[in-house]
């Protein structure tokens, strides 16, 4: 555990001190400011718009952090051989990979906590503009949505870790992770479209088969998106919450298991 934890800690430190994170925070602050300004322009649904935009900002900033810092934390280790100072210690390749993953997840956690708390400001501002009607809104659901943004980012981190376990190229890892994210965001709706057959479209069996495979291979990113519930103050089914969390744990376990298997045989010449 010492080994894993020491790698996690040094990864987190190296990530949080990266200058890029300031850039990401500034973008997030600008988006929060824009949210506050934009919502005042709407005559109705101000709170909904504010909640939606605030949560999107937190999620977007987290994703930027993972893609531009998380991917690079692996990339530099493998390209520039900083990994030598790690695995020349009593640390196995698997412990390295898991430690790295945990460090990146901690990085995502700190971004979500910081921006999640900050995102309260634009939401409160919008509520003050909208004081004359009872807007349906619940802070509990809002914070559950924020937590699920974090869980989503943890799943994305496991995918980054998986890709890093077989490519040293940061750019390839970045592109693959982004593609996985984009596909993962749409598989559920595409699959539902095909399954429900409301449009009565002719679908070749090969296509529906491929969609089915994609649905299971790529993480179902949209499952973690509770923006709508938070914006409309809809209650969330507790079993949905639990199953989604279990799904995330299951997905991460599989991704890391495959990752460590691939990484155990990697050489660093």
């Amino acid at each position, binding site marked *: 555990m010492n080994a894993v934890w020491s790698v996690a800690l040094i990864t987190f*430190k*190296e990530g949080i*001190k990266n200058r890029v994170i300031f850039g990401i925070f500034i973008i997030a602050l600008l988006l929060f400011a824009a949210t506050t300004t934009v919502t005042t322009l709407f005559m109705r649904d101000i709170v909904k718009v504010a909640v939606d935009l605030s949560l999107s900002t937190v999620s977007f900033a987290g994703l930027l952090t993972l893609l531009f810092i998380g991917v690079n934390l692996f990339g530099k280790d493998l390209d520039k051989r*900083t990994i*030598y*100072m790690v*695995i020349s210690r*009593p*640390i196995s390749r698997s412990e390295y990979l898991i430690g790295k993953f945990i460090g990146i997840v901690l990085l995502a956690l700190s971004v979500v906590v910081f921006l999640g708390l900050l995102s309260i400001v634009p939401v409160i501002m919008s509520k003050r503009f909208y004081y004359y009607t009872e807007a349906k809104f619940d802070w509990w659901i809002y914070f559950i949505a924020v937590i699920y943004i974090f869980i989503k980012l943890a799943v994305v981190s496991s995918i980054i870790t998986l890709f890093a376990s077989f490519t040293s190229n940061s750019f390839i890892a970045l592109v693959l992770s982004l593609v996985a994210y984009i596909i993962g965001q749409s598989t559920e709706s595409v699959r539902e479209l095909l399954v429900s057959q409301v449009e009565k479209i002719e679908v070749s069996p090969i296509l529906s088969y491929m969609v089915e495979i994609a649905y299971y291979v790529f993480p179902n990113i949209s499952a973690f998106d509770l923006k709508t519930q938070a914006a409309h103050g809809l209650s969330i089914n507790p079993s949905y919450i639990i199953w989604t969390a279990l799904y995330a744990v299951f997905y991460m376990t599989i991704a890391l298991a495959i990752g460590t298997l691939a990484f155990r045989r990697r050489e660093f010449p």
Partner: protein
Amino acid sequence: MAVISFDKLTKTYKTGFRKKKTALKDFSLDIREGEVFGFLGPNGAGKSTAIKILLNLIFPTAGKAEILGSDVGEKEIRRSVGYLPENPYFYDYLNPVELLSFAGRASNMDSLKIREKTESLLNTVGLWNERKRAIRSYSKGMVQRVGLALALIHDPKVVILDEPMTGLDPIGRKQVIDLILKLKSEGKTIFFSSHILEDIERICDRIGMLVNGQLRRVIDFKKEKLIKSLEDTFIEEVEKAGGLQQ
């Protein structure tokens, strides 16, 4: 018992589609306890390849390597091994104190011991006053010094240094020589590669000369006085091996 043993090691790199480069051929060598062993050879001879196999960074194509009687694949053995890579590169945004604290923790040291060792090592390598600065602002020689401190933080029995003198100024080189001699006096075993031949005879108990992946000669300075200078002996060995293969 040999502290380090290379047993008929062969390492072949893939250099392209169906192209291969054999960096080590049937390489065997034993390093004894408490000795300082200089590992010499021209560029591309295979020195770093042999060292990386010792640290389990790459795997041998054939043969095996052991440290203190354990296969190099066993991670626990690396608790007793300190390693300085050639051209080391460390985390840009961290300072040496943070790096050393990572290295100490990874080797299971407690924080008090880490703090003590950090202070004494950073003083030894002359970086104590610069310890708060991130590595990215360091010069090449300063990075090399951080690497030396990292190799020694956990007080390893076996010290493996890949070109420890490269990139250092004359004062730095003298400090490394003094450091190696101090480690030897503490009973450590030191295995290092080098291109800098001056002082080698003074520091080393034995040297090995590697050319084109094969060990050409081992010289024990206690038993053998060199007739020619070390430099001439070195060139002669390379020529005897039929020059450098590319």
